[in-house]
């Protein structure tokens, strides 16, 4: 039986050996920790975003109806609401007018949203999401934090936006959304339905889409099918599909980047193999001396094993810890340019990294195991050196 004291002595010797070759050992550990840092950072970022999307979009509209013409989305006539009156189980249908407004000065895209919140679930409590001010009345608007800093300059109470014919429409600032809601409202201008129609020059009997509230959540898919049958020129999007879209989006994104990062991992394994397989004359001499004084081949293998375990585990813990700090305290700043692209307005990513045992083990298996595997053959080659080979 392998005694604890013997293993402790072997670990001591491994550490001394690593210290003697500290330049090489440190180089391997820095690269190793860097690879784990990148893999873990991306995994934590995408996981945190996926979790946030799943948590938040659990309250998205149960059904959204969009009119499609020639494969493209168009404004939906309000009379479509009457066609749905025969469907039992629909509690309310709320028309929404929403779209985009491009600020040519800053290059930012804003999201304009107009609807009557009182007909939406929890709409009466919407005041709780507004930091200062109240729900917008006619010619008033509630701004997301990002838009407020840009459009209203932080302290203006009145500002104007261009209609499609370039005439100006003035708005009074009714309030701003709370900073906690930035992930949802950062680029949003919320106004009443008529003002949104006026801004987009949309006809009074049209809306962008219809939100359907269903009395019994278990009937959503049935009602969605009935709506699709009654209104064949529409696309019916259920809450479940919205959530699936986000799982797919971040899943793809995560997978795509993981493939790129696995290339870095493969490069590292090649690097580790190269470093570990190239026995220096000093190492050959050291092993020869060890064997002359009575070490067995198995002892040398165990010694190399401990070296690999120490290098890989310390690198793993350091890399993983740095990844958490990067995502949690620095808002995944290395990945922000990729995630947000050319967006002019983007909220602070206050991410809560998810550290799950399964995913941690996955990264452990993707990094530590290949490293140990890449170093085992060089270790065996080192261990079978004839005792007198380096000394002759």
């Amino acid at each position, binding site marked *: 039986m392998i005694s604890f004291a013997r293993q402790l002595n072997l670990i001591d010797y491994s550490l001394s050996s690593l210290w003697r070759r500290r330049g090489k050992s440190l180089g391997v550990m820095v690269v190793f920790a860097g690879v784990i840092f990148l893999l873990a950072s991306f995994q934590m970022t995408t996981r945190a975003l996926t979790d946030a999307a799943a948590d938040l979009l659990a*309250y998205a509209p149960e059904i959204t109806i969009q009119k499609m013409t020639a494969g493209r989305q168009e404004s939906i006539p309000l009379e479509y609401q009457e066609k749905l009156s025969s469907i039992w189980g629909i509690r309310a249908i709320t028309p929404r007018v929403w779209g985009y407004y491009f600020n040519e000065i800053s290059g930012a895209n804003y999201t304009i949203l107009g609807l009557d*919140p009182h007909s939406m679930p929890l709409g009466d409590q*919407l005041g709780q999401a507004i930091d200062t001010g109240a729900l917008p009345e006619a010619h008033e608007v509630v701004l997301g934090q990002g838009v407020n800093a840009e459009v209203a300059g932080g302290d203006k109470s009145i500002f104007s936006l261009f209609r499609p014919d370039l005439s100006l429409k003035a708005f009074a600032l009714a309030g701003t959304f709370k900073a906690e809601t930035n992930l949802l409202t950062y680029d949003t201008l919320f106004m009443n339905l008529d003002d949104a129609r006026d801004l987009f020059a949309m006809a009074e009997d049209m809306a962008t889409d219809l939100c359907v509230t269903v009395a019994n959540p278990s009937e959503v898919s049935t009602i969605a099918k009935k709506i699709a049958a009654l209104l064949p020129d529409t696309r019916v999007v259920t809450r479940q599909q919205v959530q699936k879209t986000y799982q797919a989006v971040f899943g793809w994104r995560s997978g795509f980047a993981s493939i790129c990062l696995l290339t870095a991992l493969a490069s590292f394994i090649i690097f580790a193999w190269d470093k570990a397989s190239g026995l220096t004359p000093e190492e050959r001499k050291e092993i020869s001396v060890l064997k002359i004084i009575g070490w067995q081949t198995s002892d040398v293998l165990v010694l190399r094993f401990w070296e690999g375990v120490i290098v890989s585990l310390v690198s793993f813990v350091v890399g993983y810890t740095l990844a*958490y700090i990067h995502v949690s305290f620095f808002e995944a700043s290395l990945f922000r*340019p990729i995630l*947000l692209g050319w967006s002019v307005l983007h*909220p602070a990513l206050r991410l809560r990294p998810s550290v799950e045992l399964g995913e941690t083990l996955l990264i452990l298996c993707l990094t530590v195991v290949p490293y140990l595997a890449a170093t085992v053959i060089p270790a065996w080659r080192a261990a079978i050196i004839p005792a007198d080979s380096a000394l002759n």
Partner: protein
Amino acid sequence: MRPSLMLLVFLGLLALTDGALFLHHHQQGIRSAAEADVMKITVAGLGLTDLSLATEARYTRHPAVTDLVVPVMDHPGAIEHFPSGSFWASPVSHP
């Protein structure tokens, strides 16, 4: 000091750091729970379907309800030109 003891001290320091990060994670959880009600009201009250993450293109701002042809609207097989768009999968097909 034995080298193994030095390694143990180093691992202990790492464990302390990770313990502090765990507490921070826990605090973040408490804060998120406190903000959950406001977020819930915002999503339900405004009927939101998407996160305000990448605002550079309409199909990255609203991937869940975007026009399905928009990412390749220039011509069939058009190369996606928005940086964040290249990381987005096609939206899930709807009935």
